[in-house]
């Protein structure tokens, strides 16, 4: 029985809470199709019996024109009312029309047969399309992918019942009364619809086409929307070609049928053809193939099947003409259109925003359907009336259009993915740089005004902009703003004057020092003066005003050759012994500029007791890049106050420090606090060696280190995309993380109900839950090393967020993008979290656990936090079977041992 259930589920995967929705949605579609397949053979046989075959292309064109008008009216209704009201209105209108036609046909007028055919063709599109629109609002995209096969089967069953019904009853109740039978079925379909909308969680109130539009909605607005969305354009292209091909094939089929049958025999043939032959094939396709094909080939592959097979079959029909071959071609075309193509097309709509989808779907389905048929009619008139081709030769025309269809389907597949990506990415804020263009005089005047204004930050920004403006004479403004009352403006003025070697501010700069005002202005003034005359540097370095010393160093940093001459070892040694840490910071900085003479001072200051001095020494070591400093720098990694500077300094060494970092990372005797920082250094060195070292540590047992490694790899992939990320290690680690995720879930399961309790079992459940979230984060980080990172990150945000629609779209995206081996591992975890236990058992052989087995495994897992939680939970739950494990854990030094000893007391 298990295999039977598995087989059933592989085709139709209906989950808890979806049963009634799916059943009545299927019934709704089935009854609509039932009614339609009574009307379809009836209308066509009445027409063919009354008129010659050459009138058929004109009927197609009439259908297109009348259909266009009705589409406009219908769209108006759909846009101004909720979907529920639109369905009710169209159902009532349909029943009224059916009763009216029943009466008119009784009068025996020939024109009524044209009207009847036009109306029947509209019936299919309006009610069936509306049914699928309801389905798209009742199910999420993930549910739809599983359930649309089943819904499609309901539709196919309805069509089979309709065709069989008319073939069996036309001789008994007559043609005309079939209209009343159809009306009764439409009423029943409406009842099924009402049951659907009353299901829990279903609301069609918000599903209205024009909710966000103005009252003055125009036809052109829909065309504009289509113009904006390539995805919709491709959908329209495919539907158009589909119906051109449909018309050419139907024409061939009708011509052959008319030659072979007359009167009631033609009606019976058409009823039997549509009701039995066509639907047997359609049912078989739907039951055995559609769901599997969609899952295996995705949207793109599914849409390719129909044009490929039709092009081949049309060529075959050309060589073997007759009612059998044309009926076979028609059979193939209609069956695949209602199954594979219909399902593929409905999925193609799903990634579109709901508002856009609802607003234009009815329009596209009705109008483009008509337009395709109208174009098909014109094509037929051209080839049969102008070029005088015989019906058998039309097969070649069909083959040519099928080739165009293939190209469009390929494009549709690409657009589908692009639309899904766009939806995911749109959740992220896109910051754009907003710099002002200052090339025109008006803008320059405005910026000058700002530079002279009272807001110092804006003034500094404006000054910087003017400094970058080509051809702008900055010095008059610098002279003017050197008198600014804002110190940060003056500081910027001196910086710009120094950069330009402008000597017009010397007096001002000296006044700055005499006034002893703000340190930033003083520092910039000193730098300016040293920039003009390096002799003043020593004076400033020895000044008790440290800011001036830094100003001198700013200037010397821009002239390294002068720096080495100006800063001598003697001064460095003497100043490094200064008790003022601010002075030692200055010395550390100077040592970095002094070249080889400064190396020993930097080493000395890396051991300084003051963290600000050590940070400055780290920066100097980064400038000198002397290997003698590497050991001290790595030691600084364990100090939170020095870590940032040490990381930056080590990164300055570049790839040549990678070997040392690799040794530290792999050395288990080195404190974990230091090793966890190594990935932070490596991520700043965009070199293949960094990637290789990090990949070696990707499976480290310390979760914190593993996470740091993954973060670093993600960063490197982003900053240096050309580096090679070894696929096999990533794939291997993916498997490890998936197994970990399933094992954590199995361990969590016995404690899930305790999750909100304030006791140890609850704490354990919350900790396991958190570990699962971390593991999921690791999984997505690994995916980010193989696939586009931004999109994978967006998918991660969606699956870990609260929106079921976003979750569904993300899983759909992953399902489309991931390769088969990755998809097999990842998608089941996200698609059916409630069945994760089954997934773990089926995919990885992980058996469900009892509380005792779960706790035992956690106690021995090597994860100290989970082991501590497990020991506490075991004591709390009095699980005496775990006493030996608890005793063993009690021998561990640290928190786990302490908790285990307390648990042992509780168990005693």
């Amino acid at each position, binding site marked *: 029985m298990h295999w039977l259930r598995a087989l059933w589920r592989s085709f139709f995967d209906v989950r808890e809470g979806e049963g009634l929705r799916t059943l009545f949605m299927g019934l709704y579609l089935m009854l609509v199709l039932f009614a339609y397949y009574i009307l379809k053979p009836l209308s066509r046989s009445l027409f063919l019996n009354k008129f010659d075959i050459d009138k058929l292309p004109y009927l197609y064109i009439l259908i297109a024109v009348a259909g266009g008008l009705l589409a406009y009216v219908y769209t108006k209704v759909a846009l101004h009312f909720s979907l529920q009201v639109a369905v009710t209105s169209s159902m009532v209108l349909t029943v009224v029309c059916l009763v009216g036609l029943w009466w008119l046909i009784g009068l025996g007028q020939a024109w009524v047969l044209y009207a009847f055919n036009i109306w029947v063709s509209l019936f299919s599109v309006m009610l069936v399309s509306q049914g699928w629109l309801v389905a798209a609002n009742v199910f999420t995209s993930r549910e739809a992918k599983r359930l649309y096969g089943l819904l499609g089967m309901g539709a196919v069953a309805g069509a089979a019942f309709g065709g069989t019904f008319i073939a069996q009853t036309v001789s008994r109740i007559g043609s005309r009364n079939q209209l009343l039978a159809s009306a009764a079925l439409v009423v029943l379909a409406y009842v099924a619809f009402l049951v659907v909308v009353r299901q829990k969680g279903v609301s069609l109130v918000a599903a209205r086409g024009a909710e966000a539009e103005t009252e003055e909605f125009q036809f052109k607005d829909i065309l504009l929307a289509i113009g904006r969305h390539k995805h919709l354009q491709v959908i329209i292209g495919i539907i158009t070609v589909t119906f051109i091909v449909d018309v050419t094939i139907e024409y061939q089929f009708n011509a052959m049928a008319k030659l072979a049958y007359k009167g009631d025999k033609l009606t019976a043939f058409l009823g039997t053809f549509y009701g039995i032959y066509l639907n047997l094939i359609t049912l078989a396709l739907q039951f055995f193939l559609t769901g599997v094909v969609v899952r295996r080939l995705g949207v793109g592959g599914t849409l390719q099947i129909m044009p490929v097979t039709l092009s081949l079959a049309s060529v075959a029909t050309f060589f073997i003409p007759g009612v059998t071959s044309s009926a076979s071609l028609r059979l193939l075309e209609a069956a695949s259109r209602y199954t594979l193509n219909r399902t593929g097309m409905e999925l193609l709509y799903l990634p579109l925003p709901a508002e856009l989808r609802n607003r234009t779907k009815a329009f596209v389905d009705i109008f483009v359907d008509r337009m395709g048929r109208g174009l098909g009619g014109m094509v037929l008139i051209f080839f049969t009336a102008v070029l005088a081709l015989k019906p058998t030769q039309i097969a070649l025309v069909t083959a040519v259009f099928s080739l165009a269809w293939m190209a469009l389907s390929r494009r549709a597949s690409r657009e589908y993915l692009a639309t899904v990506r766009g939806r995911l990415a749109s959740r992220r804020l896109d910051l754009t740089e907003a710099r002002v263009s200052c090339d025109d005089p008006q803008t320059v005047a405005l910026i000058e005004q700002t530079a002279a204004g009272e807001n110092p930050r804006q003034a500094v920004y404006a000054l910087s902009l003017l400094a970058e403006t080509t051809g702008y004479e900055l010095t008059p403004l610098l002279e003017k703003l050197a008198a600014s009352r804002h110190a940060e403006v003056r500081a910027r003025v001196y910086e710009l004057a120094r950069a330009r070697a402008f000597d017009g501010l010397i007096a001002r700069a000296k006044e700055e020092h005499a006034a002893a005002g703000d340190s930033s202005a003083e520092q910039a003034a000193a730098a300016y003066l040293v920039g003009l005359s390096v002799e003043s540097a020593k004076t400033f370095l020895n000044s008790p005003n440290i800011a001036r010393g830094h100003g001198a160093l700013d200037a010397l940093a821009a002239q390294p050759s002068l720096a080495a001459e100006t800063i001598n070892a003697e001064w460095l040694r003497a100043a490094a012994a200064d008790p003022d840490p601010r002075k030692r910071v200055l010395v550390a900085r100077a040592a970095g500029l002094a070249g080889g003479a400064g190396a020993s001072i930097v080493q000395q200051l890396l051991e300084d007791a003051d963290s600000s001095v050590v940070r400055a020494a780290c920066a100097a070591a980064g400038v000198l890049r002397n290997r003698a400093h590497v050991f001290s720098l790595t030691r600084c990694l364990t100090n939170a106050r020095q870590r940032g500077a040490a990381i930056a300094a080590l990164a300055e060494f570049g790839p040549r420090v990678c070997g040392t970092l690799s040794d530290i990372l792999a050395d288990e005797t080195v404190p974990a606090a230091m090793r966890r920082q190594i990935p932070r250094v490596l991520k700043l060195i965009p070199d293949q060696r960094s990637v290789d070292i990090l990949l070696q540590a990707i499976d480290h047992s310390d979760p914190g280190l593993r996470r740091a490694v993954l973060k670093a790899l993600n960063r490197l992939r982003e900053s240096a995309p050309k580096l090679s990320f070894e696929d096999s290690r990533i794939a291997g680690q993916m498997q490890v993380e998936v197994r970990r995720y399933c094992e954590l879930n199995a361990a969590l399961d016995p404690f899930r109900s305790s999750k909100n309790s304030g006791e140890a079992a609850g704490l354990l459940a*919350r900790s396991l839950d*958190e570990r699962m979230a971390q593991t999921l984060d690791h999984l997505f980080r690994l995916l980010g090393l193989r696939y586009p990172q931004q999109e994978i990150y967006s998918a991660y945000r969606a699956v870990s967020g609260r929106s079921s629609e976003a979750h569904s779209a993300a899983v759909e995206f992953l399902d489309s993008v991931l390769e088969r081996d990755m998809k097999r591992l990842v998608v089941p975890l996200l698609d059916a979290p409630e069945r994760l236990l089954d997934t773990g058992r089926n995919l990885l052989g992980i058996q469900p656990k009892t509380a005792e087995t779960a706790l035992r495994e956690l106690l021995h897992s090597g994860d100290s936090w989970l082991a*501590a939680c497990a020991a506490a939970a075991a004591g709390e739950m009095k699980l005496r079977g775990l006493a030996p494990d608890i005793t063993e854990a009690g021998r561990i030094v640290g928190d786990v041992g302490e908790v285990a000893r307390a648990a042992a007391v509780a168990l005693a």
Partner: protein
Amino acid sequence: MAELNIIEKVIALEGVELLKNLSPEQLSRIASIAKEVKHPPGKVILEPAKPMDALLVVVDGSVELSRDGDVLHVAKQNDVLGAWALFDDDPMPVTATTVDDTTLLRIARDDFYDLLSDNVEITASVFSTLVKRFRKLVEQ
């Protein structure tokens, strides 16, 4: 009574609003710097004149908060005294006195800062809680 182990400390810290967004494992790191302190009844643990340099969590017993002799509140199990002391060293204008035998967890501000500098996720989470609290105040 035995000293609290790390699990018991974490369970106590889960009740602290400021730390409510932290995962149990992150709380275990805070628990590792939380010192257990026991006081007899009637002990004054906070005074208006003394600046606070730690957050206190009531694990067992109760603490009376009063101003100018008027009782404002009685803090019981899982209640917190001085959450803001982690970020502001101004003294609180209240006196806190133990009512019963009381056990507290004391998280010193300096230790907390060191922990934050080593655990950026904890910092982000604490900031997130503070921002939400501030937003709520603004919306009121």
